């Protein structure tokens, strides 16, 4: 069927994303095995510590998933708008309306953040609780086609349930980070007392801390990698939805060029939202290879190159 070939999924991206998720799973399994090993071999109380970390970390993850829309909106200083509020709100709603009709999605709530930094994000635990937000800076700089490209990218995040996927993926890293801390303080305050009763207490805490630190570091890198792949697939789905990869390309070029010039004053408030932004506010100099592995978004060059592929795919004559 012609329709199948024209909108074929990107196999390379699928394979790389599957591999990343497999590795994350592997780290998780190894981590659990190590903790069980430590617990049974030496000390029963470490099991209580781990349980505590899992409950606390799980609470964090569920809380942030459940309130992701409210947290994101208040962090970004955004307010929900209805079509009759202003011309800008009407424009945003009209574009979102059309995209929802094209993609057969329920309409998300629409919000505007009053800041000059050109950016957009989508969040919410599922499609029914999703919010799409654009900043006034973005809406002023982009024309309708470009804005539509950006919103299609954000709506693809909603369709792919990226908030859920990334929350599950970060769950392990949250627990590992908690364990590092708990073990560290346990070491500091409880270490002396316990070493009187039990000579093994000190190395157990140390081992627990080391294992957790390694797991945290590795899973952190993998999560960032996963986040970059999710961005690429959102770019791809967004461009396929609108049929205009070049509009998204020009939006990306405009936005990335401008973001670098914005002063860093806003960064502390913007940083926690980075994973769901259209372009990252924290610029870790996207070009060099080392900085790339820490960033939540692929480099501009990479994104433009991937969109070129979509462009070729769409332009190919059927037959």
């Amino acid at each position, binding site marked *: 069927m012609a329709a199948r070939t024209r*909108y074929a999924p990107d196999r390379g991206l699928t394979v790389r994303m599957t591999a990343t998720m497999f590795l994350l799973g592997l780290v998780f399994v190894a981590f659990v095995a190590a903790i069980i090993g430590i617990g049974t071999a030496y000390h029963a109380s470490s099991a209580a510590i781990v349980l505590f970390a899992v409950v606390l970390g799980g609470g964090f993850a569920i809380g942030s998933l459940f309130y992701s829309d409210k947290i994101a909106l208040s962090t970004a200083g955004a307010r929900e708008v209805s079509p009759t509020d202003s011309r800008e709100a009407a424009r945003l709603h009209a574009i979102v309306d059309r995209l929802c009709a094209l993609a057969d999605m329920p309409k998300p709530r629409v919000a505007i953040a009053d800041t000059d930094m050109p950016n957009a994000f989508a969040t919410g635990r599922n499609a029914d609780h999703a919010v799409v937000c654009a900043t006034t800076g973005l809406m002023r700089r982009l024309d309708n086609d470009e804005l539509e490209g950006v919103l299609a990218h954000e709506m693809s995040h909603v369709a792919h349930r990226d908030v859920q996927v990334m929350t599950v993926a970060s769950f392990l890293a949250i627990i590992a980070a908690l364990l590092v801390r708990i073990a560290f303080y346990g070491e500091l305050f409880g270490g002396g007392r316990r070493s009187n009763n039990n000579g093994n207490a000190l190395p157990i805490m140390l081992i627990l801390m080391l294992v957790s630190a390694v797991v945290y570091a590795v899973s952190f890198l993998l999560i960032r990698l996963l986040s970059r792949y999710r961005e690429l697939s959102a770019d791809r789905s967004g461009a396929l939805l609108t049929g205009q990869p070049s509009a998204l390309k020009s939006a990306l070029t405009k936005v990335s060029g401008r973001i670098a010039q914005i002063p860093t004053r806003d960064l502390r408030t913007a940083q926690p939202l980075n994973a769901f932004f259209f372009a990252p506010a924290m610029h870790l100099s996207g070009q060099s290879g080392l900085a790339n592995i820490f960033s939540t978004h692929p480099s501009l060059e990479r994104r433009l190159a991937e969109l070129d592929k979509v462009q070729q795919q769409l332009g190919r004559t059927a037959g």
Partner: protein
Amino acid sequence: MGFLDTLLGRTKPVQPKLDDLFALPSAAVTLDAGAGFKPTGSGSVCFRPVEGRSFSDVQKDVQELLNLSSHAEGGLPVEVSSDDYGFTWLVSSRMSDELEALVTDLHAVNSSLVDNGFGPQLLCTLVAFTDEKERRLALIYLYKRGTFYPFAPLSGERRNNALELQVQGVIGSDLKWEQDLARWFPVWGAPGL
């Protein structure tokens, strides 16, 4: 979307549902009898153009095809216009009693796009109606849902919700209505309306 698609961040483009469009002529009879609205004879198909040679070729073919058929029957040529949001509208104008022919025209656009693999680009189809008081009304068909909804614009980007709900009630089960009112999105200034 399936679990695997979610996990891998893929979206399958939604294919349009075309068949329900042919329910329009009989619904128009009911609408005339119940509320006094008659078709104006114009209707349009709205789709999102894709960049590149392939799509523009298809679009050109569709236009030629429609012009040929309407010319043979002494009708007006097809108009093409694009709106502020980058969507293209193909407007077909027929005599007001030729609703069957109009729907066939609109369906020709649909099927050529679908045959060439551009089915996911179809947004909606609009058929215009008016009554003796010159009130404007459109029945809009959403391809992805396979459902209809009424749209009655007033001046200045306001819509006559009361009339829309009345029309839905009058036509009743002759058309498959869009149940989710949040999806009755307005198309201000749509060509052919």
